[in-house]
């Protein structure tokens, strides 16, 4: 049986893996790290992709394996589709960094999205997807910046 200490060490090591698209944030803050599980002899890291067909998955997998190795453990990575990733999984700290560093807002489940730069709630939709499939593009008429909004992955839901 894999010792609990080993699982904890892997969890600590892989939690700090930087996200390829937001290098200031790690996969734990973004809610991509779901769990670290072990059976008799091996350790597996379960990750939840933010969106199907995300092109960054390979890079995240490589980085997770390397981080675990650096802590002295070999792991396998499994991408799970359940539970589904939603923007709710992003931590509050991460939201502040997304707004400040990347002009990226998170669409709240209820209520209006506000501009991550000036707080205006008058955002105008411009396109359902932007440079990445997980963000839509909006225009803030108040501070006159284009901003991106992390979408929920359910189809038809903005």
């Amino acid at each position, binding site marked *: 049986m894999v010792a609990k200490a080993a699982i904890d060490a892997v969890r600590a090591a892989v939690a700090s893996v930087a996200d390829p698209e937001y290098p200031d944030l790690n996969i734990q803050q973004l809610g991509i790290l779901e769990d670290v599980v072990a059976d008799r002899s091996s350790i597996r890291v379960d990750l939840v992709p933010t969106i199907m067909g995300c*092109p960054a998955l390979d890079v995240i997998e490589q980085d997770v394996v390397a981080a675990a190795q650096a802590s002295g453990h070999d792991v396998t990575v499994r991408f799970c589709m359940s539970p589904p990733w939603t923007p709710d999984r992003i931590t509050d700290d991460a939201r502040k960094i997304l707004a400040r*560093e*990347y002009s990226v807002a998170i669409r709240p489940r209820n209520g209006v999205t506000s501009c991550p730069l000036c707080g205006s709630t008058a955002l105008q939709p411009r396109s359902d*997807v*932007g*440079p*990445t499939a997980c963000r839509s593009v909006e225009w803030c008429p108040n*501070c006159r910046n*284009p901003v991106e909004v992390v979408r929920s992955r359910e189809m038809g839901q903005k």
Partner: protein
Amino acid sequence: MRNWRNIGEFEDFLDDGGIVEPNDDIPDPYRKAVFRFIEMHANSEYMGGLTERDWIPKAPGLHRKMTALAKSQDEIGHAHLLYMVAADLGIKTREEMVTDLLEGRTHFHNVFHYRVHSWTDQIAVAYLVDAAALASQQAVFKNCSYGPYKRILRRVIVEEGFHMRNGEEMMLLMARGTDVQHQMMQESINRWWLPSIQLFGPDSKPDDELLRWHIKSERNEDLRDRYVQKFVPQLLAGGFTIPDQDLRQDNENGKWKISDIDWQPLMDTMRNIGPDSSRRISDAKRAWYDAEWVRTALDDATKAQA
């Protein structure tokens, strides 16, 4: 809204690290310069996205196809954001910018005036060209005085860095591949080395307004030199040669020195008469008008929702 009594006062503001925002009373010459720069960047992202798109059906394997798809989306998305910021400067509408591009009246980066002949050319673009573009964008971002542009660059740089990592991985695969693959990669390096070097442009003029107004933060020749120092050893380590007979290494400081550059090819691309310019522009034009129905349908859907 902030305003400045004269250009001198404005330049002092910029020299102190001031960031210009759209609601400021922006001096006209600065507005024009920053507009031209962003328009060129937007055009280049757009043309780059179309190049990438050509390889979606031809990419070897599902994996590479997904990457090509994501990269096309990145580039077109970047163009989308940049055109929004450029249009907001009030000099041209977005439609005018697109029309000017498709009619060959405006410009885009030299590297998109060449034909991508093979999959290894595509790798050379991802590895050499994307790296050159990234280096120049990083230099702009570092000290960029126009707020909305700086904010877009922040995201563009991260995404381009991701492309470069991908290009590096593919290049190393070819470097360690069969003799045929290695040879193919070498031929592509031979084709793309000089255009990548020229992407940085000729030496900056002493009175370059882009530098004075902190739109750019580094001189072209400095960026070019740093690129050479980084990529010459990398290519040599991969077992490749550099297509430059006069390339030499300084015995004392170990720095690489490339031969004098013939700038005529760059000048040709700036007049849209490069080797593949006319095909590229007409292809972009066809793609634009072919997609007219999509834009109409999306506009109609938006109106129906409202």
